[in-house]
């Protein structure tokens, strides 16, 4: 089972991100379970969403305590919440930021885990969508970083969920992020 925890703020599409990831896995004929940490409506509040992916029925319901991967949609959360809590030793972390690990204050953490990466997802979202909603971008990046789902599945999921015009721009953004991460990983290899 592969467990992903997504951190962000209300209004940034964190729950949608978890659902798209689950949908991508479903499209690849796998089992997936996505759910948010629950609460009442409020824009801007920290939210967490979870996604489990496996090849057999997923029965467990607890929140993800030991994620294999973490996606951080809003790097201001790094100061507020222990977003990396429980991350497994060779776990992945995908952070929406233009800053370096040093500037984010996580260089120790990033270097003890070899699979941390930052992506300027908000800027890419502005470029492709005209709105600072980085969720689809980060999913494209996630696919490239972890290979848990393919880019094709991610774009399929986007097309299933959104209306054509919005889907198209989100797919373009996700694809661009995918390529960005592939390139970044290649230069660091």
């Amino acid at each position, binding site marked *: 089972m592969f467990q992903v925890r997504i951190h962000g703020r209300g209004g940034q599409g964190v729950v949608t991100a978890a659902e798209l990831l689950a949908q991508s*896995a479903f499209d690849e004929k796998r089992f*997936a379970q*996505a759910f948010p940490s*629950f609460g*009442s409506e409020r824009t801007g509040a920290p939210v967490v969403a979870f996604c489990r992916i496996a090849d057999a029925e997923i029965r467990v*319901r607890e929140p993800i305590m030991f994620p294999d991967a973490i996606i951080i949609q809003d790097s201001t959360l790094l100061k507020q919440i222990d977003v990396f809590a429980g991350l497994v030793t060779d776990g992945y972390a995908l952070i929406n930021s233009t800053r370096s690990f040093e500037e984010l204050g996580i260089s120790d953490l990033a270097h003890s885990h070899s699979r941390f990466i930052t992506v300027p997802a908000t800027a890419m979202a502005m470029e492709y969508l005209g709105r600072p909603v980085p969720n689809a971008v980060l999913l494209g990046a996630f696919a490239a970083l972890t290979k848990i789902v393919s880019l094709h599945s991610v774009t399929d999921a986007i097309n299933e969920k959104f209306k054509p015009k919005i889907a198209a721009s989100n797919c373009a953004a996700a694809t661009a992020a995918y390529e960005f991460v592939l390139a970044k990983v290649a230069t660091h290899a």
Partner: protein
Amino acid sequence: MLRQVEGSKAVADSVAACRPQVICAYPISPQTHIVEGLSRLVKDGTLENCEFINVESEFAAMSVAIGASATGARVYTATASQGLLYMVEAVYNASGLGLPIVMTVANRAIGAPINIWNDHSDSMSQRDSGWIQIYAETNQEAADLHVQAFKIAEELSLPVMVCMDGFILTHAYERVDVPEQADVDKFLPPFQPRQIMDPNNPVSIGAMVGPEAFTEVKYISHMKNKLALDVIPHVAADFQGIFGRSSGGLIRGYKLDGAKTVVIALGSVLGTIKDVVDEMVGADFAIGVLGIIAFRPFPTEAVRAALSKAQRVVVLEKAFQVGIGGIVIENVRESLRGTDTKDYTLIAGLGGRPITKQSLREYLVRACQDDVDDLTFLDLDTELVDREILREAGV
């Protein structure tokens, strides 16, 4: 059709496929996505011949349901927690009048203190209301149980509460084979009311019954509820015949063969329990799981048979009798009457506190060695409790 879908949406689509004619609901977390989904299906014309009524309270919701059901319409509503309590007078009225209303209870804790997260205190508080209560373990089962619920309700002319864990199931996005219209039409014939408000054949519904006959009315309701013990399994069997999967029924065992310890629970926590039990391998732990799907009427005989070889049972409950202990355990004890089987109650998940595999495993390991108290509150913060007690004592 197999879909990756939010639990609430799967339920909304399944309910729509049952062709309800009146849907009346008042929004309350965490049931909102179900009624929003249904309102959309009515508004965009997918669900035809259905009146969707935005009522002004839960009391109104159940009252509208009563009026509609008594007039021959297939009716659906949904609520949770505070909302269920707000409609209690009408809840008893519906069962007393024998109206086959189907209602989802998106299980949520009852305040004060106000809490929107999952536990079973709401539906448990209505266990004596005369409604049939069935609990879904997964969203697949939640979708399926709603379809079965209409059939059970209409066969018995009794209302049915389909309980699904709020947020944990309602807001979980997972794989569900959502029942298709054609299959549901095969399974569920149009509603044939036992009696109906009809100018061509007038009846009076809701008369006053005095001491001379009240006991008999209640006894008949008692008998009908016991009849549900036969109806529920055969509806599940009919369901399997058409949909090809086992869903619903009275109870469901897991690794009961040779189990010396049996963990009993209702609802979604069964999934977590099974994962923990699978990890507890070895002769020390001959441990199995018994899921109770139909809680009302309580399947005393079926549970007795399932527990016949158990040395001990652990009943995990998401509600309790304040000042006393568990609720389900008392029904289980009825099934254990005359045996030496030990029993332990574990109150867990109150107000949505996550039930973690780690905590559960630690407890079960000790329980298998009879090294737990009769009554335990899982993950209780004893320091916080002690501090509070001192504070209240003015220390």
